[in-house]
C-alpha cells in the first residue's frame, strides 16, 4: 500500500510539475497585463513541434533543440505581445479577450499547416526504469521533474533577486508607481511574454517527450493551467507552483482512492472548493505575486 502511495505521489508530481510550468507563464502574463492568454497552450505545442523538427531535420540533440525552441518561443511571445496585445493595452478588457481567442485559433491552425495533423512524440532515448523497493521511477519522468524544478528555481531567482525580476513584480503590483521609478513598462511586458512563452515551450517539450505533441493537447493544457491559476491565486507565482503540484497529485489520488472516472472532475471540485472558501486563491496574500 505504501509502495502504491509513493508511486502515485511520484506520478502526480510529474504531471503536476508540467501543470506548474504551464501555469507559471499564464500567471506572470496575467499579473502584468491582466490578460487571459489562451494561446499559451498553442505556443507550447508550437515549441514541441519545433523541438521535434530540430531533432529530426537538423540532427541536433534533445537539449540543444529544446533550448533553441525555447528561444524561438520567447521570440514568438514577444511578437505576440507587440503585434496583438500591445495595441489594445488601453482598450476595454474584452478586446484583449477576443484577441486571445483569435490568437489561439491562428496559432493552432498554423501548427496544423506547418507540422501536420499526426501526433508527434519527441524522442529522448531515456527509457531506463529505476526501481527502489517496488516503486518504479522511469528515467524520463525523473528528468522531467528535475528539469521542471530547475526551471522553477531559475525563474524564482530571476523574479526575486534580479533588477528585471523586481521590475516585473513592481509593474504587477503598481503600474503607475513602477513608471515613476523609471521602469519601462513596455519592455517589461515584452520580457514577460518572452519569458512566459519560453516556459510554455519547455512544458510543451516535456509533454511531447512524455506523451505527444498533437492537435487538441493545447486546449487541455490551457484548461489545466487556468485551473491552477484559480487554485493558486491569479498572478501568484508561488500559487502556480503549489497549485500545479496540488492539481497533479489530486488527480492522481482521485484515481487511486476514488475512481478514475472522477479524475477530471477533481480539478473542478478543487476549484469550486477554493472559490467557495478562499476566493482569492490559496497563495494570493503572500510573499510575492
Amino acid at each position, binding site marked *: 500500500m505504501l509502495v*502504491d502511495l509513493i508511486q502515485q505521489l511520484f506520478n*502526480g508530481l510529474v504531471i503536476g510539475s508540467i501543470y506548474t510550468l504551464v501555469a507559471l507563464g499564464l500567471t506572470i502574463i496575467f499579473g502584468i497585463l491582466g490578460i487571459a492568454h489562451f494561446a499559451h497552450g498553442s505556443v507550447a505545442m508550437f515549441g514541441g513541434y519545433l523541438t521535434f523538427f530540430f531533432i529530426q531535420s537538423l540532427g541536433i540533440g534533445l537539449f540543444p533543440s529544446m533550448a533553441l525552441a525555447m528561444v524561438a518561443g520567447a521570440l514568438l511571445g514577444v511578437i505576440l505581445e507587440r503585434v496583438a496585445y500591445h495595441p489594445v493595452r488601453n482598450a476595454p478588457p474584452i478586446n484583449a479577450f477576443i484577441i486571445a481567442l483569435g490568437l489561439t485559433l491562428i496559432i493552432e491552425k498554423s501548427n496544423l499547416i506547418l507540422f501536420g495533423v499526426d501526433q508527434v512524440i519527441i524522442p529522448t532515448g531515456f527509457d531506463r*526504469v529505476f526501481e527502489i523497493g517496488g516503486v518504479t521511477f522511469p528515467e524520463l519522468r525523473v528528468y522531467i521533474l528535475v528539469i521542471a524544478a530547475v526551471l522553477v528555481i531559475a525563474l524564482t531567482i530571476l523574479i526575486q533577486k534580479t533588477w528585471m525580476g523586481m521590475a516585473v513584480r513592481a509593474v504587477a503590483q503598481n503600474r503607475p508607481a513602477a513608471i515613476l521609478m523609471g521602469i519601462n513598462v513596455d519592455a517589461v511586458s515584452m520580457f514577460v511574454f518572452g519569458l512566459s512563452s519560453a516556459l510554455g515551450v519547455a512544458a510543451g517539450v516535456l509533454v511531447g517527450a512524455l*506523451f*505527444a505533441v498533437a492537435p487538441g493537447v493545447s486546449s487541455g493544457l490551457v484548461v489545466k493551467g487556468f485551473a491552477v491559476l484559480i487554485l493558486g491565486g491569479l498572478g501568484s507565482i508561488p500559487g502556480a507552483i503549489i497549485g500545479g503540484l496540488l492539481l497533479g497529485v489530486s488527480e492522481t489520488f482521485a*484515481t487511486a482512492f476514488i475512481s*478514475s472516472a472522477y479524475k477530471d472532475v477533481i480539478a473542478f471540485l478543487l476549484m469550486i472548493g477554493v472559490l467557495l472558501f478562499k476566493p482569492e486563491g490559496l497563495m494570493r496574500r503572500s510573499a510575492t505575486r
Partner: protein
Amino acid sequence: MNRFWKLAMAGALAITAPAAHAADKVLTIGVSDALSGGGAVYGEPQRRAINLAIEQINGNGGIAVGDDTYTLETIEYDDKADPTEATNVARKLIDRDGVKYLMGYCCSASTGAVASIIGREDVIMLVGTAGARAITAAGNDNVFRTRPPGDYTGAAAGRFIYDQGVRRLGVVATRDVALFTQYRDALVEAFKEAGGEVVAVETFGGQDRDMTAQLTKVRGLDPDGYFISGYVEQVAFAYRQAHELGITAPRFGFSGGSAEQFLAVASKEAMEGVWDLIAIEFNAEALGDNAKAYAKAYEERWGDYPTPNSAFAHDQVWVLKHALENAGTTELGAVKEALRNLTVPSEVVLEYLPVDGQMFDPKGQAYISNGAFQFHDGDWEFKTKLPSDAAGYSAYFQTIRK
C-alpha cells in the same frame, strides 16, 4: 446522355451484339461511403472492394435471376462519414436515382443515421464496416451487416483470457466510445461467467495519454492479467506506462492497431507479449485461399494492398449475387427472404460463423471468426482463433434494441 439515348443504345447493342443474351439487364447499386475526410481511410477501400467484386461478377457472365441475366453497376456518392450528408445521399439514391440496393457504409455515425430511417423505405441496405451495435440491433428487416458488433468479440475475448489461465483480471479502458465499452462489458461478463474475478475496472477519457495512475492502482491489486482497450494511440501509451511500472503479467487488449502505430509510442520491449483480441478482418495470414486471391486481385486492380476492413464490403456484393439467384427475382420481398435463408457463399473472403446454418441471423447480422494476435519481436503474429459463440451471442442480440 439522357435516358432515351441510353435505352436506344442499349437496344442497338442488344440487336447488334451476337453473343448477348436475349434479355440482358442492369441492376444499379447505390454506394454511399466516406470518400473524403477522416473516414475515407475506411470508405474508399470499401468502394474499391465493391467495384472489384462487381467487375469479377460481370466478367463471369453476370447474375442469373430467373430467366434474365443481370450485370451490376454503381452510382457512388461521398457521404463524408457525416450523418446529415449520409441521410441526404440515401434520399438522393432512393428518390432520384430509384435505386433498390444500398451498399458501402463504413462509419458508425453516418450509417446509424441512415439505418434509423431505412426501415420505412423499399430498399435493401447492405452495411460494411460500420460497427455501432444499434445499426442491426434496431431490428429493421431490410438491413444486413457483415461486420459483427464489438461486444460479440468481447465475449469471445473474455472466454479466451480465462482459458489462458488468468483468474484475476484488471481492466483499464476508455470510458466514452460505445464500441469499446460494449466490448469491455461483454468481456467482463464472459470472463466472470467462466469463473474469473475482475479486480478493478479503471477508465480513461478521450484526450488522456497518462494512464499511470490507473495502472498503478490496478497494479496494487495484484491481478494476474490486464485488459486494456481504446483507440490505438491511447492503448499504446498504456502499454508503455505499464512497462515503466514494471508490470509483467499478461496484457490483453482490444484496439486493432498496426505494429507501426504501436511502435511509434511504445518500445518493442514494452510491447513484447501483448495480445490483441479482435474480429479477424481481412488478414491473409489468418484466413485462407480466398483471402490471398482477393489481396492479389485488389492489388492488381487498385495498386494498393487491401485494408483489413475492405472485405466487409467486398463480401456483401457476393452475398447480393447469391441472394438474387436464389430468389429468382429482383422483387424486394423475395430477395430479403433469400438473404435471410442464405448459406455462406463460397466466394467470400472473411470466415463467417453461420447461425442455424445461415449467414445472417434474424436481425440481419453476420458473425465472423475472432482471433488472438500477439506482439512478438516488433510485429503482430496470428496465434489462434478465439472461442467465439455466434449462436449464443445472436440469441442475446435478438433481445436488445440498441
